[in-house]
């Protein structure tokens, strides 16, 4: 399966992510059990699994928003688990994260929120409010907004935007960060079907354009198949499915979309 990806582009064959025996316990409960995974640079990986399978925990632990219990995470050439606080901050700035909730500051304009994406780069008031930002940062933020089709609402407050528009602004903020890879945790989950599909398409298209690695979780079968190269299935804290999206059959995947509660 890695062979297939290497055919896609020879220059991006090195893994940007390698997980070895990654475990995460919450108290007594084992949420991630010996996860082993390699992701090739530039690929788009979809992460699927029923509610509570551990998708969010896995994504978050990659940048230590959740501290792994044991195991090794190598991300963008760094041993994440061994990083000191300061180096962790530096690594985080290289990884774009999109959440299920847009997590924008609702009282501020879309443009200001996008400028927040340079927080780690320009350390100081320049990234707090758009009126304080440098000309070049403002221009770049406008380009990021344009890339997600939101340049027309740049000066509107986020709380006046729809859910889909807000999620686009959140993606623009992520682009502003000039990330080297992108993690997205159910970016389509709180949106209506059409906006959700647009967001997934946008993320896939943008990351492909910029040759960024994308790891995205989703609860929608069709999104998973259309907007990824490879599908990883999590069940009960283990990877139980790993296949190219192109040859995946909906029938095999379906069990990963059945909620445990059901």
């Amino acid at each position, binding site marked *: 399966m890695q062979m297939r990806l290497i055919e896609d582009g020879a220059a991006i064959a090195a893994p940007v992510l390698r997980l070895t025996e990654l475990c995460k316990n919450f108290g007594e409960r084992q949420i991630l059990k010996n996860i082993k995974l390699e992701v090739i640079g530039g690929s788009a990986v979809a992460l699927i699994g029923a509610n509570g399978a551990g998708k969010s925990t896995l994504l978050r632990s990659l940048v230590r928003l959740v501290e792994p219990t044991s195991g090794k995470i190598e991300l963008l050439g760094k041993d994440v688990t061994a990083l000191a606080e300061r180096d962790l*901050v*530096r690594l*985080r700035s290289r990884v774009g994260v999109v959440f299920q909730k847009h997590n924008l*500051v609702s*009282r501020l304009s879309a443009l200001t929120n996008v400028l927040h*994406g340079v*927080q780690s780069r320009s350390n100081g008031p320049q990234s707090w409010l758009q009126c304080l930002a440098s000309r070049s940062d403002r221009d770049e933020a406008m380009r990021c907004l344009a890339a997600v089709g939101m340049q027309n609402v740049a000066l509107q407050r986020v709380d006046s935007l729809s859910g889909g528009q807000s999620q686009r602004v959140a993606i623009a903020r992520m682009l502003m960060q000039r990330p080297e890879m992108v993690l997205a945790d159910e970016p389509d989950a709180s949106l209506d079907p059409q906006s959700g599909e647009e967001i997934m398409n946008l993320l896939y298209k943008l990351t492909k354009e910029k040759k960024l690695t994308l790891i995205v979780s989703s609860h929608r079968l069709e999104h998973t198949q259309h907007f990824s190269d490879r599908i990883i299935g999590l069940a009960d804290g283990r990877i139980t499915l790993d296949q190219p999206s192109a040859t995946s059959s909906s029938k095999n995947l379906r069990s990963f979309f059945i909620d445990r509660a059901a």
Partner: protein
Amino acid sequence: MTRAATPAVRRFESPGIFAFMVWALVIAFIAWSFAETGPSLERLMRGANRLIAPDGMLARMFPPEISRLPQVLRSLLETFQMATAGTMLGIVLSFPLAILAAEGLSPNRILRGLSRGLIAVFRTVPDLVWAIIFIITVGLGPAAGVLAIMVDTMGFAGRFFAEAMEETDKGPREALSAIGATRPGLIFSAVVPQALPAFTATTLFCLEKAVRGSVVLGLVGAGGIGIELKTAFDLFDYDQALTVIIAIFILVIAVEQLSGWIRREII
């Protein structure tokens, strides 16, 4: 299972012996308090008589005497300026104090504990006591009043600012720390903008409180219109006193109206 009869629910939970003793003590203390300090009916009647008798206090208040109006207005302005200056100083200083006291924003536990303690001391010691302390240290006059209002404001606003910042939506904060934002970055990009309406409301409330409070501060000599009121009462010039009271009334109402308007417009 057999159908068990639903148990009858008692109308009253019979109190335990301890709860009963506590209640009895509370009631006894309330009764005792009235007996020791409450006005007797006879005294109330005499008081009412003194107030409304033909040569009583009310009669001597009307019509208000306005010969000293310019002086009264000057003191009124001084009162308002004291309140404004003291509130602004207090607000500016409570901001860093609140950051140090806020859970999740404070750099460490010791600083957090210290600033919480300081805020608590500022809040629990009454402003009149602060005024007396500052009169002793910086002397009689409005400067003492300004400092007293400042400390009082810090006690109040410091706590409310910290709470407002703690209650902001954690999402934006997490999103920014996920991309490597620093503490000041988080505070000024994600926390302060969200807490701004609460800050404004608290500031306006502090100003209203300071205007009312600064009248009393004048009574002990910390500047402002309070001293006019005290002099008038001491000399039994009740008609002068009424002018001062009306002036205070107008100022307080005006400030309340103004802050209500600002609140509606801005928030």
